[in-house]
């Protein structure tokens, strides 16, 4: 038995873990450090290879016999197909600029979450199988054999990268770690390795209609319920056009907006806005999911889910598509949709029916972000807004990774915020944590699984730390965001790190501020919380309606 150290020896104890070479440190699959394995059912639904029951906790992951060959051939194919991948494998000069920029490194303290090391997991294979030095010198040249342990390591760390691209914003060569992660995950799924949360969402979206697997009538019921709720609060019951043909616009939102709080209040905001404008639009229960978890698994799966947008737009005969507050949906639209499923020649270049503004940026995809749409309305003075109805809210804005870094949507949400909040109610977080340098929520790219909460809290800590700063300094009590994953994962993140800070979508704030002709006097907000200065009336009102 080892001796218990005597107190006088304490001064000499080193708690420092041994500085082992990274290749020799294997990840330990403990509860809370990784996402669980995908059940075979989803893979069967999607015609994905090698459906089987397996567990990350088992030694044997039941890989197919020829897994190594499939992986290496797939790697080779992708290197030939995507010149960017080969470039990313070749050009890293190990300057280290990205090393400390990943929130997962900052929160976990695990060096393999440094983007440069995360890429090295793949790069070491590239060297071994695709460079002469690596083939001859092996480990000396930073190359290594593909083994089952390496595959497990890839599974562990590629699913600790939320594909947020923060690191690439700091890389002098623009090496995109998210792209490396995406292609690495593709290779993993080609040998039957996927995570339950993402696969279940994709399976449900593909077969039933949305990530949460709600059938069309449940979606419609929810929308009707929101319309009722809007009526209670405002006296106005917005229309809920569902699957109607012949309208000008198809509106697509992430399922988080009609299924889970606080996104649901955002959905009420959309409905009110469209009613106010008397917008000629429809919602589809078949393009019932703006998000695209398929893209977290493979390009091919992303393409299959995305195709529903255009198919529905065609079937319903609309002219263009308006998209809600979603995160990765916009990365897919901005960077992939046109090449995957475009060109959508049967649609028209989007023009706002209210202001006449041509959305030239959407010329090709025919799809406009609701923040662009609303900011344009405000700019043209088309909305009657009463910011005092948001006076109970002191807001900071979290730039969601995808709209911020993949489409540069930085000003529009801020412009809306400033118009729907009273002056002095909006505070930015510190400069190195917002806009294109924003910290990720720590849960993007399929990480919302509850077994993964500890990692999400670690990855989300840098974000939360900046929120805590504005909370303590300016009394910020809400974080605004334009992403459904954010709205789903921020509540626990705040509850753990900055209790007392609530979450809101931006169109919920618009819905609160929007003044309808003939509306009832508002005494509560869309969540039925009393408006500032109307507490007494609100109490009475709530007694009546509840």
């Amino acid at each position, binding site marked *: 038995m080892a001796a218990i150290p005597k107190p006088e020896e304490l001064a000499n104890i080193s708690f420092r873990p041994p500085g082992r070479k990274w290749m020799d440190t294997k990840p330990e699959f403990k509860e809370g450090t990784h996402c669980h394995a995908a059940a075979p059912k989803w893979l069967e639904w999607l015609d994905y290879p090698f459906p089987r029951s397996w567990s990350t906790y088992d030694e044997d992951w039941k890989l197919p016999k020829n897994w190594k060959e499939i992986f290496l051939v797939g790697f080779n194919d992708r290197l030939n197909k995507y010149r960017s991948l080969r470039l990313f494998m070749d050009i890293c000069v190990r300057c280290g600029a990205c090393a400390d920029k990943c929130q997962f490194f900052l929160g976990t303290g695990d060096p393999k979450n440094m983007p440069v090391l995360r890429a090295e997991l793949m790069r070491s294979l590239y060297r071994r199988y695709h460079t002469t030095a690596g083939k001859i010198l092996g480990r000396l040249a930073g190359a290594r054999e593909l083994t089952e342990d390496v595959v497990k390591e890839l599974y562990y760390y590629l699913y600790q990268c939320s594909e947020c691209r923060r690191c690439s914003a700091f890389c002098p060569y623009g090496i995109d770690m998210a792209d490396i992660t995406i292609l690495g995950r593709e290779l993993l799924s080609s040998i039957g390795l996927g995570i339950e949360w993402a696969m279940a969402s994709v399976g449900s979206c593909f077969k039933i209609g949305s990530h949460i697997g709600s059938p069309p009538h449940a979606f419609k019921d929810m929308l009707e319920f929101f319309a009722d709720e809007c009526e209670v609060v405002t006296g106005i019951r917005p229309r809920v056009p569902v699957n109607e043909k012949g309208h000008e616009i198809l509106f697509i939102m992430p399922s988080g907006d009609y299924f*889970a709080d606080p996104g649901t209040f955002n959905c009420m905001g959309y409905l009110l806005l469209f009613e106010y404008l008397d917008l000629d639009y429809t919602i589809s229960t078949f393009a019932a999911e703006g998000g695209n978890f398929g893209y977290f698994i493979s390009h091919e799966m992303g393409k299959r889910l995305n195709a529903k947008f255009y198919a529905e737009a065609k079937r319903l005969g609309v002219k263009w598509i308006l998209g809600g507050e979603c995160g990765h949906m916009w990365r897919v639209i901005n960077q992939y949709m046109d090449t995957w499923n475009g060109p959508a020649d049967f649609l028209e270049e989007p023009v706002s029916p209210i202001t006449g503004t041509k959305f030239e940026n959407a010329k090709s995809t025919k799809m406009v972000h609701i923040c662009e749409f609303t900011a344009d309305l405000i700019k043209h003075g088309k909305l009657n807004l009463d910011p005092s109805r948001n006076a109970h809210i002191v807001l900071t804005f979290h730039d969601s990774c995808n709209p911020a870094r993949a489409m540069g949507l930085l000003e529009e949400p801020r412009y809306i915020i400033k118009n729907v909040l009273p002056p002095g109610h909006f505070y930015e977080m510190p400069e190195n944590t917002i806009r294109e340098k924003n910290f990720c929520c720590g849960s993007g790219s399929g990480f919302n699984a509850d077994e993964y909460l500890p990692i999400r809290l670690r990855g989300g800590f840098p974000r939360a*730390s900046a929120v805590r700063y504005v909370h303590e300094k300016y009394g910020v009590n809400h974080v605004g965001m334009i992403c459904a994953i954010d709205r789903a994962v921020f509540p626990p993140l705040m509850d753990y790190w900055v209790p007392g800070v609530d979450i809101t979508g931006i169109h919920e704030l618009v819905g609160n501020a929007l003044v309808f002709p003939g509306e009832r006097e508002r005494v509560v907000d869309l969540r039925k919380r009393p408006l500032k200065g109307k507490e007494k009336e609100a109490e009475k009102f709530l007694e009546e309606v509840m």
Partner: protein
Amino acid sequence: MTRMDLQGFLSEKRHLVLERWLNLIFETYPPETARFLKREKDRFANPVAYEFHEGIKGIYEALLYGMEPDRVSYFLDRVISIRAIQDFLPSGALTFIFLLKTAIRKELEKEIREKGVPEELLEIESRIDGLALLCFDVYMRRREKLYELRVDEVKRRVSGLLRMAGLVVDLDQKNNKEVKANEF
């Protein structure tokens, strides 16, 4: 060395002890991480180091001058909230408090070598043991919070539907018990 002497000594050497302690805590992480934690001084670029630093400043003050338990717990929590969800066993997560003993002894190395362990040091060390007991409470609260969040999250995920069915009205209200965790 009198009691006042040691207290005065530790108060005077505050910065040195704190720096040593902080570095010892950093070294519970792998070397590459420890290097980063020491190097980066921007609090937003290095939030873990910042929290640790703020936490141990308060804890050190509590050690020397005493403090209300709630207030001490607040400072302990600034360190423990992070380590409770990182990849540590409970013992590893709470090692940091015992490293304060190491840091102090290092600072007193010369005196100890020359004059032996001063009696007052034992007193200070037993105060650290007292803090360690508080650490267990704070740690447990954080772990409980983690489980509570998991339950809340499952509820929130379907909250829209539950609200529609009139089952759950307000997730903000902590005491809302209409739906129990085991019903999912």
